[in-house]
């Protein structure tokens, strides 16, 4: 009985661990004259931001903010971004801010990491770069130690904070939902994402919060660092060393980036609990986690410990 897996709402939780990595992170806040404009800007900025493999950053809306939480009292959204290096983050954020927020009607962009240069000496440029779009008509304003730029645009002024602090984050926290059918696993997956969507300090950057293309390290092709995680591919069950049972035909991976170990651990617990509650008896057969043997990432989220 010692090795029996933990059950959550009757769904077995495998004694596996998720392996995650150090990343560089930041948070920005997008506001708009109304919720829709703010959402439009945030959606644009977080587009094509699922994986650092080809997108440069993993970026997504962290949560919607109330008017009392935004710097200018308007509707807004907090966005978290993660990159493998500070320089990549410093390249991606100004680019996305310029093309996606500056262009969005009524929008404004603020730092979401409290603290000035003395607290966070590593900075990611926001208005520091975009201000030049003002062609000399831009106006700087410093209040309470924070510098804002006002750039004239066609609906008035684009207000943008000068820069934002860069901090350490963790990328690659995960859990996998396994089941017989896509319908059953989808129910569990969507329940997990719904439960996790307003948690602070974490994002799930893949489409709908989940990835079907989980990867393993290495490839038969020398130029590729990663390739399909064949052990979880149902069509390869009979031809490779599979980790799926005979009755399991779908595996979806929920990938979590977070500002701290505790934030990711909490989100895994919330997500798995919701997934098991919704998916129990509807096709969710097991929950497990993805790792590389513990050799690549120093952050290990043991599901048995996280779910306690």
């Amino acid at each position: 009985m010692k090795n029996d897996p933990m059950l959550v709402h009757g769904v077995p939780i495998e004694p596996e661990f998720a392996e995650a990595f150090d990343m560089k992170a930041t948070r920005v806040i997008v506001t708009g004259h109304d919720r829709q404009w703010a959402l439009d800007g945030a959606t644009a900025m977080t587009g094509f931001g699922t994986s650092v493999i080809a997108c440069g950053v993993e970026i997504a809306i962290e949560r919607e903010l109330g008017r009392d939480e935004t710097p200018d009292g308007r509707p807004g959204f907090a966005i978290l971004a993660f990159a493998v290096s500070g320089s990549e983050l410093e390249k991606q954020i100004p680019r996305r801010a310029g093309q996606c927020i500056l262009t969005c009607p009524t929008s404004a962009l603020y730092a979401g990491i409290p603290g000035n240069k003395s607290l966070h000496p590593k900075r990611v440029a926001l208005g520091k770069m975009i201000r030049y779009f003002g062609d000399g008509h831009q106006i700087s304003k410093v209040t309470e130690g924070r510098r804002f730029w006002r750039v004239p645009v066609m609906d008035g002024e684009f207000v943008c904070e000068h820069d934002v602090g860069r901090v350490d984050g963790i990328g690659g926290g995960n859990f996998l939902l396994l089941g017989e059918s896509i319908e059953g696993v989808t129910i569990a997956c969507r329940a997990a994402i719904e439960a996790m969507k307003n948690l602070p300090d974490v994002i799930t950057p893949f489409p709908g919060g989940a990835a079907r293309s989980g990867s393993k390290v290495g490839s038969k092709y020398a130029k590729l660092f990663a390739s399909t995680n064949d052990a979880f591919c149902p069509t390869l069950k009979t031809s490779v060393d599979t980790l799926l049972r005979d009755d399991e035909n779908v595996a979806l991976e929920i990938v979590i980036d977070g500002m701290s170990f505790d934030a990711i651990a909490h989100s895994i617990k919330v997500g798995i609990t919701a997934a098991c509650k919704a998916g129990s008896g509807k096709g969710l057969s097991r929950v497990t986690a993805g790792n590389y043997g513990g050799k690549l990432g120093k952050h290990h989220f043991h599901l048995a410990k996280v779910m306690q």
Partner: protein
Amino acid sequence: MTTWTLRLKQSPEFAIDGSSIDARELAGKSKSMIESMKIGADCLGDWFDVVIGDRGEGDRIELIGDLSNFHHIGANHQRGEIHVDGNVGDFVGAAVGGRRLGMTGGRIVVVGNAGPYAGHRMRRGEIWIGGDCGRLAAAHMVAGSIMVAGQVGADSFVGMQRGSFFASRLPKLASGRFTRPLESFYLLASLIRPPKTEVFESFWKQFRITPVISVRGDRAVGGQGEIVAPAAG
């Protein structure tokens, strides 16, 4: 962080240069050392009762009394707050003598009135005046913000290069030197927190919620300073 409270014992009948009342000058000094600091021809202790205290946020100098004859208050101000519970004299936050720039940061709050040349050549920071200000306010202003809840004196904004001046109503301006008034919303106002007193909070609310009118100038010097007032003012 430190609070220095300087309570005026008696109002001088002559002008005194108050620019030495500066947080960097006061920092690290004992009460007796501060009282012996020179101010004009006298010592600080001749004019003020000095109390030193601690507080959580930035450095703060509290000046209590009618300082109408103390000029150049905050001339070298860089950070923290100078809070004047009363009136101040001429050149608040302004450059001293032949210096190019006045205050370069922080906030000066004057609950009462200010004399002429408020913010003359100021470079950065905020000056809040709850009452009236004298003539030539914001003259040759380089940058920063000045907020005046009361009346604005004549000939103000001459040579204004950049910076923002907020008034309860648009003052009379020199002909041809400023753009025509435009109406807009002023989003940045929601990012600036007024001093926590009724006069400033109600004054500032007009800029945060309702449309404003603004003009730019002084065009005589190629300036892009802005003068902003509530559209309904």
